[in-house]
């Protein structure tokens, strides 16, 4: 019976028919999706913090409005994604509790600090840029609710990427100090951005199954290569340098060769030792704890209102 269901499930996937919440699915498929979608949602929410750090200090009205709207979009992405995860039979409150306890992971990139205004440009350009590379294929993910959420998310991410690039462009066309600020931000965000694509393919054991299930469409290394190829050209356009002495155009492969990623740093940040891991979790927990009385009041009021209605009726 199970084998028969599994075959039908895989046939559907092979024919590019979307899997919907009520359809039968292997338990491992469901679990993989819950983990991936919730991690993705957590990343959107934690990702609000490094950029939110500059909302009150954005240097002009245009930038302040742009940044505020961007960070708000990320909150919206978190909402759609939690909703997509809930279609798989989990509760947002439980997922959020796992984030707050440190059990659930989120994208390590947000464990780096935003020190200068140029970091806001660099995040939009590189981090949203890398996110798009990862996420555009997810618009065709086999699981319907996730794929549909990603269509909305991707539209906004590409706007964020353009906005970030435009901030970088303005800095690069500005004073010497501003251009130095832009270069410094690129130096700090480049390698962590490459790490966003995850471990090398031979170190990524779950990828093969995800590919077969069409949750994943391209390998980590392929996506990373694509990102490097596109971004190097954009850096040239900005007139700033990618901080990699091994970066070279390879005529044969028609791709850029690039240096070895510091995987020790990557795993170290994943394990919780990044410069801001603690600050990010503390901030999330603080917001949650300080909001408890508000949430309780909302529930209590709704309950009173319901009872009053019953009395009248």
């Amino acid at each position: 019976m199970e084998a028969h269901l599994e075959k039908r499930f895989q046939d559907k996937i092979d024919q590019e028919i979307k899997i919907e919440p009520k359809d039968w699915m292997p338990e491992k498929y469901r679990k993989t999706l819950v983990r991936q979608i919730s991690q993705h949602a957590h990343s959107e929410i934690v990702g609000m913090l490094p950029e939110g750090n500059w909302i009150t200090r954005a240097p002009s009205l245009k930038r302040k409005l742009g940044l505020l709207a961007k960070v708000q979009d990320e909150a919206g992405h978190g909402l759609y994604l939690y909703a997509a995860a809930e279609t798989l039979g989990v509760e947002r409150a439980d997922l959020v509790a796992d984030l707050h306890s440190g059990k659930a992971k989120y994208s390590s990139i947000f464990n780096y600090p935003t020190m200068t205004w140029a970091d806001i440009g660099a995040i939009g350009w590189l981090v949203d840029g890398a996110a798009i590379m990862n996420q555009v294929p997810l618009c065709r993910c086999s699981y319907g609710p996730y794929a549909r959420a990603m269509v909305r998310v991707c539209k906004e991410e590409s706007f964020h990427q353009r906005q970030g690039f435009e901030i970088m462009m303005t800095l690069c066309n500005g004073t010497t100090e501003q251009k130095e600020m832009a270069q410094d931000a690129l130096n700090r965000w480049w390698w962590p951005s490459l790490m966003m694509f995850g471990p090398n393919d031979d170190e990524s054991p779950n990828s093969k199954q995800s590919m077969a299930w069409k949750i994943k469409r391209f390998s980590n290394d392929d996506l990373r290569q694509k990102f490097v190829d596109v971004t190097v050209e954009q850096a040239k356009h900005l007139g700033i340098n990618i901080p990699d002495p091994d970066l070279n155009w390879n005529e044969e492969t028609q791709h850029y060769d690039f240096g070895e990623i510091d995987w020790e740093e990557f795993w170290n940040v994943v394990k919780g030792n990044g410069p801001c891991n603690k600050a990010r979790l503390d901030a999330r927990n603080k917001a949650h704890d300080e909001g408890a009385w508000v949430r309780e009041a909302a529930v209590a009021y709704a309950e009173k209102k319901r009872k009053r209605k019953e009395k009248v009726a």
Partner: protein
Amino acid sequence: MELKIKYLLQIADNAMIIGHRLSEWCGHGPILEQDIAMTNIALDHLGLARNLYQYCARLEGGGKTEDDYPYKRDVRKWRNLLLCEQDNGDFGKTITRQFLYDTFNLQFLTALQDSHDEHLAAIAAKSLKETTYHLQYSGDWMIRLGDGTEESHDRIQKSVNDLWMYADESFLESEADRWALNEKIGVDLNALKLPTQNNRTEILKEATLQIPESGWTQQGGKEGKHSEQLGYILSDLQFLQRAYPNSVW
């Protein structure tokens, strides 16, 4: 002209500072949906401020830009109400501040739609739609928190008591207010007092909250006399423009 700019800045600075305060919540709200809602409201206020600063820059000419007003004036040149600069405190204090402001702003913008300055009237009409929603939001939360749990009731009552001395500064006329009323550009603040207070009373009653006895009203914001809080807002807001003067961002 000078009085007209002063009048416009009173309105713009309120929106700028209260929008800035609300934007401090972004990423730290008690509920994700409320985080989004408060940011929406912050965006409305900041958008209004920007429209008005643009208008000021156009009227003044001489290469002035929209950013000159928020980014290059020190505390004594700001004309916002003291209420707008009060710190966020807990969610209840923020809601109370917004509620006191929204109840005034609704009446104010309704009247300002009839301004003989057509541009200003158009800006007011657009903002009025947003403000109706803002008051719906802050009013609903006043009721929810006031009539929620014992803790929420006590917290919000304390915020009402603490902020009450800033509630009515908006009705005190400045020189610019008198000039604008005379020119039929502005509104009669005295006429707004009763409907605003009725609106407040009605919602506070539904929220099962005590209306504080009217006492002393803190004043001075419109004349550039501020609390100590505004300086800290400006040191954040203006940091980059001050640290790297004459740069384009």
